[in-house]
């Protein structure tokens, strides 16, 4: 079997993607799967036509890999790929849309509003921001409606810092997602389907040293403490797993995903977002979960890829 790992792309997360791609490629090679890495550029389609791989592993983060469009193109080329189809991918990538689906399925997610920047100029920023604070309260989390790696995200505890947070967010995306900020424990649930349906790997608890899981905290070894498995009691862990699996299924996802949640002091798990191309870098959460499960990343990825290749 030969696998093409797509990594790089033109998104904000290109650097993360290149590292994810290399780790995926190395992991596959280590278990005897032929794998090579390519960028999503003008050479991709000719290469797929001339030398089609058995399957594509999408290690592209950001819009290129996650908004569904690339998957649509791969379908046009008749090349199987790992992960959800274009539609499900698009749904998960757009946080407001994903949250609406979660809410429909009674899966807890923080109250929110999503607003494109135009609304602020049309309706007046002061009026809109006042309304948001009145309705959702404080603290708030402001983040791009489409994005990852903590880019453009700010926790707002004081209404005076909300405008600056909006400006910072709109540097990354046309639409901002503003939601109630839930205090609690950050937990990541990595989900894989090895042939028997989606299963949750050990939960990873994230404790950034300065309290914010920003870009530096995610990608600098030494700045965050990760606990795998998470330090939650059994009943809570089980409930978190159920919530995460529900989220994965409700969005129509496939093969693998990562669900990011907050577990409140009451043990209630609230879903923040669902990732269809989870990071695979040296500090990423899914590989950590695989290791905590006593499994080999290469074997896990190889199994997933083999299933995808049969589609």
């Amino acid at each position, binding site marked *: 079997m030969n696998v093409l790992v797509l990594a*790089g792309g*033109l*998104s*904000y*997360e*290109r*650097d*993360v993607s*290149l590292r994810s791609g290399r780790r995926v490629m190395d992991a596959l090679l280590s278990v005897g799967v032929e794998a090579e890495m390519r*960028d999503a*550029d003008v050479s991709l389609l000719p290469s797929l036509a001339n030398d089609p791989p058995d399957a594509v592993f999408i290690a592209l983060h950001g819009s290129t890999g996650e908004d569904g469009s690339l998957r649509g193109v791969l379908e046009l080329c008749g090349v199987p790929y790992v992960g959800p189809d274009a539609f499900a991918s698009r749904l998960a990538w757009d946080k407001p849309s994903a949250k609406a689906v979660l809410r429909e399925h009674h899966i807890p997610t923080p109250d929110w509003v999503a607003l494109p*920047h135009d609304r*602020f*100029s049309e309706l*007046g*920023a*002061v009026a809109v*921001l006042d309304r948001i604070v009145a309705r959702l309260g404080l603290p708030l989390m402001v983040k791009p409606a489409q994005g990852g790696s903590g*880019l*453009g995200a700010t926790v707002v505890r004081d209404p005076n810092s*909300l*405008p*600056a947070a*909006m*400006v*910072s967010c*709109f*540097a*990354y995306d046309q639409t901002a997602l503003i939601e109630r900020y839930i205090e609690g424990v950050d937990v990541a649930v990595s989900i894989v389907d090895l042939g028997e349906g989606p299963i949750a790997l050990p939960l990873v608890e994230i*404790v950034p040293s300065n309290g914010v899981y*920003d*870009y*530096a905290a*995610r*990608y*600098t*070894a*030494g*700045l*965050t*403490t*990760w*606990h*795998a*498995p998470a*330090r*939650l*009691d*059994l*009943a*809570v862990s089980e409930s978190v797993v159920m919530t995460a699996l529900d989220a994965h299924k409700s969005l129509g996802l496939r093969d693998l995903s990562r669900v990011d949640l907050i577990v409140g002091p009451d043990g209630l798990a609230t879903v923040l977002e669902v990732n269809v191309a989870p990071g695979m870098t*040296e*500090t990423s959460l899914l590989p950590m979960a695989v290791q*905590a499960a006593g499994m080999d990343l290469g074997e896990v990825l190889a199994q997933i890829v083999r299933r995808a290749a049969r589609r």
Partner: protein
Amino acid sequence: MSETELDGGRVSDTGTTLDDYTDRYAHRVNGMTASEIRALFAVANRPEVVSLAGGMPYVAALPLDTVGSMVGELIAQQGDTALQYGLGQGMLELRERICELMADVGIDAHMGASPDDVVVTVGGQQALDLVARLFLDPGDVVLAEGPTYVGALGVFQAAQARVVHVPMDDEGLIPEALEEAVVRFRAKFLYTIPTYQNPAGVTLTEQRRERVLEICERAGLLVIEDDPYGRLGFHEEAPLPLRARRRDGVFYLSTFSKTFAPGLRVGWILAPHAVRDKLVMTTEANILCPSNFAQSVITTYLRTMPWREQLKGYQQLYGERRDAMLTALSDLMPEGTTWTKPGGGLFVWATLPDGLDSKAMVPRAIAARVAYVPGTGFYADGNGRQHMRLNFSYPTPERIREGVRRLAGVVEQDLAMRAVFREAM
């Protein structure tokens, strides 16, 4: 890993930071974190992005075939020396050539320059590093222009020194500001790039050179003069280096990176013998010796190829590109944007309209497929948000114009966004 039963549940303490050495690193490692901004620049080498962010000379302008044959012959005929370890101080023939080059700009035997006092380094960067190793203890103060070269900031930070910036204007370092700084701070040295400065593009005028030297002499302040771009003036000769005016009190650093090619990593320092001895001891401890191969290539190049014509070629090429950039900026940038007009070198320093932040603007620029370096990279004190460095040496004039067009769009968008939220702030 331990597991304890607790109230019917299980708690295991399996925390990891994925860095086993956090309690063993030297203090100088503090603050080394993955940088969001640097990561965003990963797209800059995709062809879709017009990068005005690099600092790269246009090495494709070299006659690469000829250089290639030259290198081939060099190995064939002198491979046993060129590929061997050499002197820590650098090859004598290169040091002699370096003295010839310096004599062109007034740093000659009369001014105390001799091959014995030249130390060849791995690029100008290592020259800076050696100076820092020799002179800086943690907590020492360095005076530098504001803004200054990012590579120097990195060296001073690694030495745990404190950088105090002295402001510049269109004529370079402001002497009155230097005077104040010299009184307020007991600095180890003044680090200056007087000619076609990176990043500001400005040049210290003739009159100010004398004033700066007087101020430093009176204060007993050592001057570290970094001159990578002095030979890259367009339609003009730069004022003579500081070192050409003083035998003492100025160490002169330069490099072949822009006049020939950066890939060879060859630079040098000219310093008085007592210092030079220590520099040699330090560099030997650091790298053993600079690359004989790289030095041989440069020596042969200077000896056998028309390097002055090549230099003229670079001057012409970069002059055209500077013109393209200045024209594009003038035609396209929104009102309120200003910029320097360099007489040489590789960079323009732009100042954004009030209220804009060049670092915060980077994601917009990436989305618009243009890259630049935010001004904050060139200050140790967090300043620089209203500025950006734009490189013109590498992209073609058409790409430069396109890049400026995209950048202007980004600035407009940012202005509009801030206007929307200004009343709320």
